[in-house]
């Protein structure tokens, strides 16, 4: 953790003895940022904590003492029992994992291949192709929903996970290719030329380059994965059947049905948050570092 800025330290060791008022102002100046940050941090955490804490309580305690932690008397897992016995959460969960993992892996593979071609070879239409592929960065794929649903009906892919995977790949490719192309350009030429002299095929060289952009792949992976996992729109439109519903859609429908069963609602919200929160807590430093990487202090 960094220490305070030098200017503050300088002021503190000022030879002339600062007046009480000045010291008070200095103290306030140092505390105020923390107070503001603590306020907003509490604001960010409070609703989430309320849900998690109350999901472990009996119904009278949820309403009677919403701010209290569960104790021996009020502790209850009844909500979780309801969720596990009455819903198909495991199926939803599995669907989400299949869709997210496959879409992610294919996006990274296909995106890396295209980025490699765009960064490595100069051919006619290279710039135009890069431009064509980058249009999708700013245009949300949702705007093509009418066309996408038609296409999926024609292809017989409605209510299949394949439909979701294909759409998510198409959605993620533009930004993936845009970022990866820039990273691949930075891979040293000598390495590739040496391999070529040794008679390596272009596919072999691609295999050499990919591990060198691993950090970029990781960052893109994390940022591709979260919107896919959290998406409601396409599961709702392309694959709403109970067999293909993802966790986000499943939670949305489940909560709609059990709206009056507070134990079940709180438990299912907690369960739905858990995987993404664990994932975030593991990767948060990497995530934030990958955004701020451009400006190292």
């Amino acid at each position: 953790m960094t220490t305070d800025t030098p200017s503050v330290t300088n002021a503190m060791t000022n030879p002339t003895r600062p007046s009480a008022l000045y010291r008070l102002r200095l103290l306030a100046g140092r505390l105020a940022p923390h107070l503001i940050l603590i306020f907003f941090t509490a604001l960010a955490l409070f609703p989430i904590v309320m849900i998690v804490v109350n999901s472990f309580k009996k119904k009278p305690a949820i309403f009677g003492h919403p701010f209290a932690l569960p104790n021996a008397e009020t502790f209850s897992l009844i909500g979780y029992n309801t969720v596990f016995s009455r819903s198909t959460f495991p199926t939803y969960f599995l669907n989400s994992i299949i869709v997210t993992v496959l879409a992610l892996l294919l996006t990274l593979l296909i995106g890396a291949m295209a980025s490699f071609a765009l960064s490595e070879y100069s051919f006619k239409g290279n710039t135009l192709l890069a431009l064509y592929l980058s249009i999708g960065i700013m245009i949300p794929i949702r705007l093509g929903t009418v066309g996408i649903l038609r296409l999926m009906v024609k292809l017989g892919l409605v209510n299949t996970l394949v439909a979701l995977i294909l759409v998510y790949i198409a959605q993620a490719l533009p930004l993936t290719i845009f970022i990866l192309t820039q990273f691949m350009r930075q891979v040293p030429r000598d390495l590739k030329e040496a391999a070529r002299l040794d008679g390596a095929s272009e596919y072999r060289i691609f295999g050499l380059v990919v591990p060198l952009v691993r950090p970029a792949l990781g960052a893109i992976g994390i940022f591709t994965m979260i919107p896919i996992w959290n998406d409601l729109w396409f599961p709702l439109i392309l694959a709403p059947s109970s067999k293909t519903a993802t966790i986000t859609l499943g939670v949305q429908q489940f909560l709609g049905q059990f709206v009056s069963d507070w134990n079940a609602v709180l438990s299912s919200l907690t369960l739905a948050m858990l995987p993404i929160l664990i994932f975030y807590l593991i990767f948060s430093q990497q995530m934030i570092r990958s955004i701020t990487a451009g400006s190292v202090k």
Partner: protein
Amino acid sequence: MQLKRGRKSFPTYLVVFLAPALIIYTIFMVYPLLNSLRLSFYSINDQKVETFIGLQNYVTLFTNSNFAPRFWGALKNNFIFFAVHMLVQNPIGLLLAALLSAGGRGRRFYRTTLFMPTVLSVVIIGFIWQLILNPLWGVAESMMKLVGLGSLFKPWLGLTSTALVTVSLISVWQFTGIPMILFYTALIGIPEELVEAGRVDGANGWQAFWHIKFPLVLPTLGIVAILTFVGNFNAFDLIYTMKGALAGPDFATDIMGTLFYRTFFGQQLQLGDPNMGATIAAMMFLIIMSGVLIYLFAWQRRVQTYEL
């Protein structure tokens, strides 16, 4: 690298590398988008025969008594939704970024926690806030009583006058982390010497921020604004989760995304209409494209002079 001259064979590998991305992107993104735009100029009858009707769908959208009030209402609401984000989310994001970039203890903890709501699903956020604001549970009301504002509590989500702003603020609550982290990135990239030079010239922290740092984060402000714009005019999940496809009460929270969904899929007595849906999507496309073009040509060019 230049393709080796004299190599006669067609560069098959080029096709192998590019084809999968091009095919998937073209078939599942570009083609449906263009097809949607095309469908907005057609109508379909019961025999599934498509007829070209020119701009008739647009005329219907702007003037028909069933569509026009909903369209203009959703458009207006969407601009309010966007304005709340610009006026609340982005200034708070900048404030938090400025505080974080000043260093100090616990920076990593604050940063991690403040960014956390952004990674959660909008569906979860919607339900969480519905519970927190629910008068039955009374959590929000008790909190307000604690600071002596209990009498101000109202079921904000249920009132036509407050529902839209409430939903907007919930979205702000979730996404403040994004402008925060983008501004933070820009702020920590500013060379220390520049700020020190200002300090030597007698600028205090406040002046140093507005006169030295702020002009340097203007390009980021542009990026934040356009990301907010595109995100807001494409929003759907939160309102669908909290207020359903009808975006109640009395369409008070109806934005372009919910109007699009409702028109395309139908609701209650009204049947879904893919062509009118496509027309609304085309309008969203136009709005988003205008925003992007304004950003690219007006903002970015003007701001370039400020860059280091």
